[in-house]
């Protein structure tokens, strides 16, 4: 793999513009976690005109529901979950300044269009590598919706969290490009 690009949130337009589908990245700093239940709560707050519990400007959302932290550990296994369950909510959050998401699996056409119009990226982490990824996580605390348990919004501090750019803000799509490169007649 080529040398990884270091990403330090909060991200700017310039950080996002230089990323291309297929780039390896290492994220260090703060990530906020949210799965579909937390997204639904965020939408309900917005609909009620209430402030969100976290300012998403320039931030990265990580789609994860970690397993419980055993004694002596910061967090349990913490790999990515399927991103498409968040698709319905994502364009709204990109409109609030969200700059990147980390997950796994395909995004909708609406999300891909919103990445381009809002200058944001979708990053893929290795699904099922929850034990490995947990080693990059230095701190974890719940900052919203504690009643959701593993689905609560956590603030994570990570160091060299490995991911790969799946969808950049120029229309690049690693899933499509990778598949085209290796597909052959059956």
């Amino acid at each position: 793999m080529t040398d990884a690009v270091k990403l330090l949130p909060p991200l700017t337009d310039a950080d996002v513009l230089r990323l291309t589908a297929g780039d390896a990245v290492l994220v260090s700093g703060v990530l906020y976690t949210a799965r579909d239940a937390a997204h639904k709560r965020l939408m309900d707050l917005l609909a009620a005109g209430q402030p969100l519990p976290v300012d998403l400007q320039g931030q990265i959302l990580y789609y994860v529901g970690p397993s419980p932290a055993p004694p002596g550990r910061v967090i349990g296994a913490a790999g990515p979950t399927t991103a498409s369950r968040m698709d319905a909510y994502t364009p709204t959050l990109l409109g609030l300044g969200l700059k990147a998401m980390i997950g796994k699996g395909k995004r909708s056409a609406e999300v891909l269009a919103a990445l381009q119009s809002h200058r944001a990226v979708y990053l893929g982490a290795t699904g099922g590598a929850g034990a490995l990824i947990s080693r990059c996580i230095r701190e974890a605390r719940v900052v919203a919706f504690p009643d959701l348990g593993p689905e609560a919004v956590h603030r994570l501090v990570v160091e060299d969290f490995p991911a790969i750019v799946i969808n950049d803000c120029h229309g690049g799509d690693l899933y499509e490009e990778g598949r085209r490169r290796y597909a052959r007649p059956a």
Partner: protein
Amino acid sequence: MRQIHTDRIIDAVKQAAMAANYELGQDLWAALARGEREEESPAGREIFRQLLENARIAREERIPLCQDCGLAVIFAEVGQDVHIVGGDFAAALQEGVRRGYGEGYLRKSLCHPLTRKNTGDNTPAVIHTEIVPGDGLTLMVVPKGGGSENMSKLFMLKPAEGWAGIRERVVATVAEAGPNPCPPIIVGVGLGGNFERAAYLAKKSLLRELGAPNPDPELAALEAELWDAVNSLGIGPMGLGGRFTALGVHVLMQPCHIASLPVAVNIQCHASRHREVVL
């Protein structure tokens, strides 16, 4: 008549649920190592490297391979000469799951389908009980992740569609799933039976040792053809492009109604976790 106390059953299920989540089976280790050697795509090889390292960390540090510790499926084979004492058999299986997920720091991933309220202890497990000859009790505990289960499908084909129709549906299911179910996947195919039996066969086929040939030569040939077809899709590890979209395809088959051709495709992620205990 041989007696088995429910306390032993509870403890066996608890230990199996924990071990299945921490320790990848030897067959999976071998399949991932082969992938790391043979995958053509550099990004794909890197995924295999990460998955092997992940398995080492999980085993050594006793933390789950994947944060999705699954819905617990239990296949119980109860010898007809066994007398279970001390309480309710199904309740003992559920208690074992409750303790394994609680004491093992495994994620509780079950909820009410409509309110989405978490049940809090990862119960109820899905239990399949079969009465078999003898006085043994075999429990297979299978934590099944949600991401790959979501990509699974059931088809009630017309008999005229035959093998070509079956093949087309299996390949289309894997193609549509793409990167979502955490490839490299294992594809379980259930052929025949009826509506629910096909799905059961598909799930049960996943439990066969990965890399071991199907004992039925006819099915072994069909598996090889399907494996080649899905690996020609180019999806590759984590969907980044590559040769290994699937680590294997398993087929179980049984007769069906003359009017029917049920086909179930159960997708299993690379973290194929199952642990057998014989009491």
